[in-house]
């Protein structure tokens, strides 16, 4: 790119002097990078709270009753789910990495609507505070599980309305982010940045943005039905008033299944950025990877019924939903094979980001393949509502989206903070995390297959051994996370200065200083080629 961009600029996180307090300066900022960094800190904080809750659930299962009673246990798994899903993983990648890097990857100065971006950040904070309020208000915290299934969510005395209101507000934040990103991608691309010259990460954010816009309103209206049911007795889910609780499940999963793709599509985008950089090869099947993101987003709308095979549905509907579920595996498989093909004959440097990315491919494959087992009708009848499901979605959510956040965090850490982390400690943390993860969640597959139901407080003695193994795995997982984050936090302050392009990346963020200046590019970049032209370099 132009040499002008290499001149040092004031980093984006310096004081602007507009406000007296640093906090006000950040909260009032419309700079996409600042908003992204704040989001990043927030989602990681909620992630750690969620991890602690999950860790305590595992501890309690070591010997049910020694740590908490049944009611507390129900509240713990509900909060674990609500926090990890609604506060960490659904907003997760788009709001943090999307905000920081989407405009840079497109060669833009900011998103299309910077003030709406700030509004969605405020809404996120508000929603999070309202959810936290439901814990400390008079009465008990929510105990319905993160799905808020009717009729229990309408009848329980717990603070459901507050929690649901919080999720409703978060939904607004999510919609506005999606809207903003899709418009940004349509309108803000740098000259010469054609659709098929865009890196893969913006492509996945584009697909994600559409899902956020078109699925989240359904969740909003469904949550509103819960609140109206609780306050005004409008019984859309109450059979005694003509309603139907299964209708709730339909409406809920119409949002929440596409939401799975809100979580995992941008994760795939991060992996698609990392794999070419560390194998020094162009992204194999670039167009297929980009288009399969759209394919997943579209097909993902028509599979929600597979969450409800045992709830009561016609056989025809079940067969169709099962079949379409299998179809989703096709674009996902396209991505997996293309990543592996990118690695093939590449000049691989096994740095921490790639290690996390490879773990993503491995864990996500396990999660995806077990998804096919429970997506087919006959095994589903046996496995529905067991630990097998818990194992499956932790492999997809944590092994998939969670690991890709860690991958992205290591990949972009030098760009965001301007400093390098300790490679050795990152890999040490990864090792403990990876081993712990598999011990923790793989034993859940076994438990589920043996028949252990999810969300149960207690279990018969024959499940004890696997529960102990699983809990021991959670200790390694937690230790790994501690090492990883201790390394990153320490390096953010004490690490050595990072160069502009530590990994030899080809995308636009590596053409500007680390950390970037306030308006990203000194001079508008002009794009003349695709995002991953490593082959030319090799030929030279």
């Amino acid at each position, binding site marked *: 790119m132009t040499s002008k961009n290499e001149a040092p600029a004031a980093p984006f996180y310096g004081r602007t002097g507009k406000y007296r307090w640093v906090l006000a300066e950040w909260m009032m900022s419309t700079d996409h990078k600042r908003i992204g960094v704040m989001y990043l800190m927030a989602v990681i904080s909620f992630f750690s709270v969620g991890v602690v809750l999950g860790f305590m659930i595992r501890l309690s299962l070591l010997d049910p009753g020694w740590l908490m009673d049944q009611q507390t246990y129900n509240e713990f798994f509900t909060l674990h789910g609500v926090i990890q899903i609604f506060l960490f993983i659904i907003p997760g990648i788009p709001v943090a990495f999307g905000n920081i890097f989407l405009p840079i990857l497109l060669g833009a100065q900011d998103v*299309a609507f910077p003030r709406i971006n700030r509004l969605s950040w405020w809404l996120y904070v508000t929603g999070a505070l309202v959810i936290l309020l439901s814990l400390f208000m008079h009465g008990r915290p929510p105990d319905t599980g993160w799905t808020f299934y009717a009729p229990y969510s309408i009848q329980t005395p717990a603070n459901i309305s507050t929690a649901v209101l919080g999720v409703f507000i978060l939904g607004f934040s999510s919609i506005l982010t999606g809207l903003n990103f899709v418009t940004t991608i349509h*309108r803000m691309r740098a000259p010469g940045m054609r659709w098929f010259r865009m890196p893969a990460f913006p492509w996945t954010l584009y697909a994600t943005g559409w899902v956020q816009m*078109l699925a989240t309103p359904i969740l909003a209206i469904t949550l509103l039905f819960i609140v109206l049911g609780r306050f*005004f*007795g409008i019984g859309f889910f109450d059979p005694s*008033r*003509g*309603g139907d609780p299964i209708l709730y499940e339909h409406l809920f999963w119409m949002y929440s299944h596409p939401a799975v793709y809100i979580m995992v599509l941008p994760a795939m985008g991060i992996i698609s950025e990392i794999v070419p950089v560390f194998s020094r090869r162009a992204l194999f099947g670039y167009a297929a990877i980009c288009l399969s993101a759209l394919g997943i987003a579209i097909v993902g709308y028509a599979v929600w019924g597979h969450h409800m095979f045992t709830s009561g549905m016609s056989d025809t509907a079940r067969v169709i939903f099962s079949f379409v579920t299998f179809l989703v595996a096709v674009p996902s498989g396209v991505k997996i094979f293309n990543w592996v093909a990118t690695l093939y004959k590449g000049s691989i440097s096994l740095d921490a980001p790639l290690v996390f990315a490879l773990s993503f491919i491995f864990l996500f494959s396990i999660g995806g393949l077990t998804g096919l087992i429970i997506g087919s009708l006959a095994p589903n009848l046996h496995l529905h509502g067991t630990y097998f499901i818990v194992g499956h979605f932790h492999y997809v959510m944590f092994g998939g989206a969670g690991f890709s956040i860690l991958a992205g965090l290591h990949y972009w850490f030098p760009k965001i903070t301007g400093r390098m982390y300790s490679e050795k400690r990152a890999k040490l943390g990864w090792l403990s995390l990876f081993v712990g993860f598999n011990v923790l969640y793989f034993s859940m597959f076994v438990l589920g297959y043996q028949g252990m139901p999810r969300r149960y407080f207690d279990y018969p003695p024959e499940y004890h051994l696997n529960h102990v193994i699983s809990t021991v795995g959670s200790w390694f997982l937690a230790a790994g996370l501690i090492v990883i984050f201790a390394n990153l936090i320490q390096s953010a302050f004490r690490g050595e200065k990072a160069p502009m392009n530590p990994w030899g990346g080809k995308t636009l963020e590596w053409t500007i200083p680390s950390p970037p200046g306030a308006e990203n590019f000194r001079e508008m970049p002009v794009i003349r080629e695709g995002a991953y032209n490593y082959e030319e370099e090799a030929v030279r």
Partner: protein
Amino acid sequence: MNSERIDPQGKKMGMWFFLFTEILFFGGMFLLYAIFRSLYSREFHAAAAEENLLLGTINTVILLTSSLTIALSISALRRGENLLSSRLQAATILMGLAFLVIKFFEWKAKIVLGIYPDSPVLLRLGKGEILFFGLYYMMTGLHGLHVLVGCAVIAFMVFFTRRETINRGNYARLENTGLYWHFVDIVWIYLYPLFYLIT
């Protein structure tokens, strides 16, 4: 390079996206309506007879006219007639408020009769009637909320138009407001037959 590049087309695009989300938001309710009506079509018929067709029709006329005035206010602004434009916007607000007042009296008449969610009178009726009035209050209520928000937004537009913050060269905000107002109107065009005309 200049950092403030106004992109009216991008703004309009964002508004259309927002309207998509609104359509889906109401879509969830229309879906419920479709399901419950197919289950209890006869009771929905009977319940719709309780609605005040006259007031509903007047409201439809008012809202359609208000869509006309907001559209005219945009073309007035395009011609640079800020004063005329702001008056047309004010007329739109007045009609929106008139709509809400009429809606209020409709609700009140029903509540006096004891027909409101969870009321003893309603619970004695059939399941279809309970659902019909549940949907009626929910859908017209949320629609009314949208009308109210629309009035507030147009009030800001009147203010901007008078101060010439929006003018013939920069009217994307008013156009987006118009889009929103037409959306509110369209939702009502569907609500009207579904609640008043199915007798």
